[in-house]
């Protein structure tokens, strides 16, 4: 088969090129966290705010948004992440800080009433807003940001744990998605990424 090798080689080269191109899509902005521009969808949600009123993504126009999922009875990840975020915010200049809105979405609406969320988020920073909603609304936003949540078995006192994602999603002032931060990212690096995000 004289034509066998060149044809095979050509096909393989073509396939390798396609794979390389798709793997090497260069991101324009650099973050310490992961640049997810174009990978995840832009900001959209319909939830209930701390005053019990509906809040949608429209209300966030002009703000740099950081989105995080959790619940107020969370013993570990939620308080530590919110603490790290509020420290990172403190490290930013006043003007930049005021532009940032942290959205803490509780996936435990049974226990987390708007009033409780208000009390909880105030403990961390003025820039943190608690949100929750019906399971339908929560399913919509968790599916959108490809994160899971679930409930553990309640103990004798009725306390139960809630599993949730650990990512912090960052959106620019137009609600376009750019950044995914790990909850255990160092505070200084978080602050740098938030500052970069606020300039977009």
């Amino acid at each position, binding site marked *: 088969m004289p034509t066998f090798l060149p044809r095979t080689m050509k096909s393989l080269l073509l*396939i390798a090129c396609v794979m390389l191109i798709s793997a090497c899509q260069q991101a324009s902005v650099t973050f310490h966290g992961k640049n997810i521009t174009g990978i995840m969808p832009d900001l959209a949600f319909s939830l209930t705010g701390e005053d019990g009123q509906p809040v949608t993504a429209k209300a966030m126009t002009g703000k740099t948004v950081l989105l995080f999922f959790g619940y107020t009875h969370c013993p570990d990840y939620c308080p530590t992440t919110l603490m790290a975020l509020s420290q990172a915010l403190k490290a930013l200049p006043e003007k930049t800080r005021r532009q940032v809105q942290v959205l803490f979405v509780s996936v435990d609406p049974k226990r987390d009433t708007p009033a409780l969320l208000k009390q909880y988020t105030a403990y961390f920073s003025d820039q943190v807003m608690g949100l929750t909603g019906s399971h339908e609304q929560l399913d919509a936003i968790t599916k959108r940001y490809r994160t899971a949540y679930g409930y553990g078995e309640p103990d004798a006192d009725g306390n139960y744990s809630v599993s949730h994602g650990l990512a912090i999603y960052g959106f620019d002032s137009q609600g376009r998605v750019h950044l995914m931060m790990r909850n255990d990212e160092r505070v200084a690096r978080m602050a740098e990424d938030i500052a970069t995000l606020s300039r977009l």
Partner: protein
Amino acid sequence: MWQSVQGALTPYIFSPLTVLSCLFFVALYGLGAWRLWQAGRGPSPWRIASFLLGVLLCYAVMHTQFDYYARFMFFMHRLQHLVLHHLGAFLIALANPIPVFMAAFGRWRLPGLAMAWRPLRRILFDPVVATVLFVGLIFFWLWPAVHFDAMLSLPRYELMNASMLVDGVIFWLVILDPRDPQKAGTSGFGVRFMMLLGALFPQILLGAYITFSPPGLYDVYSVCGRAWPIDPATDQVLGGVFTWIPPAMMTVLGALVVLRLYLHYDNQRG
């Protein structure tokens, strides 16, 4: 009871592409089989069963609650790809569906489609290309950075699953083609054995690498949250084992079919 069955069968994220392509190919196969029966050359019942079971399995892992677990648990994701790339694709190819699909068109010839298909078939069904693609796609989608993005982006996730299924079917079509290679000009049985060997060892290496790597190789599952609380190390070890052992077993099954075909034609020739 009915409610829980209904819940289990409801897709996590509705995908028109999955539903339409499954319906299209089942309908095409049904029409082709019916036409062949009319002509007295219908496919045997076990081939029909193999085709339908293959499609059903692939549909089940892509478009039921299984898909939810596959998105949020690494080892479930590996099971999903085991079905798409190996088991489901194997069963579909074992049914020898191409002649049935062709028969569906009846006397209605599509010269344009045939012209476009022929060179594509020559490239994709080339033994070296088919083997490199088969192994290459497994490695590509399991490359940690690529895997991370595929699990975050809905279009990439669908592309990943569709490419695994299509590529799996092509590979197994080459391996399991029941025609006599000497008459049909298909890949010889020796070449097919080499293809299986070529696909086997990289998969074993990759599976072992994942199994014995320190946990955290695929941290997208930690970042996005797992479907239920499981030790990340256990998740990775199970995923590694499912990349390693069942695919190797499918290769052996493939080799048995090739051996059977070889003996069949060898006996015929005496």
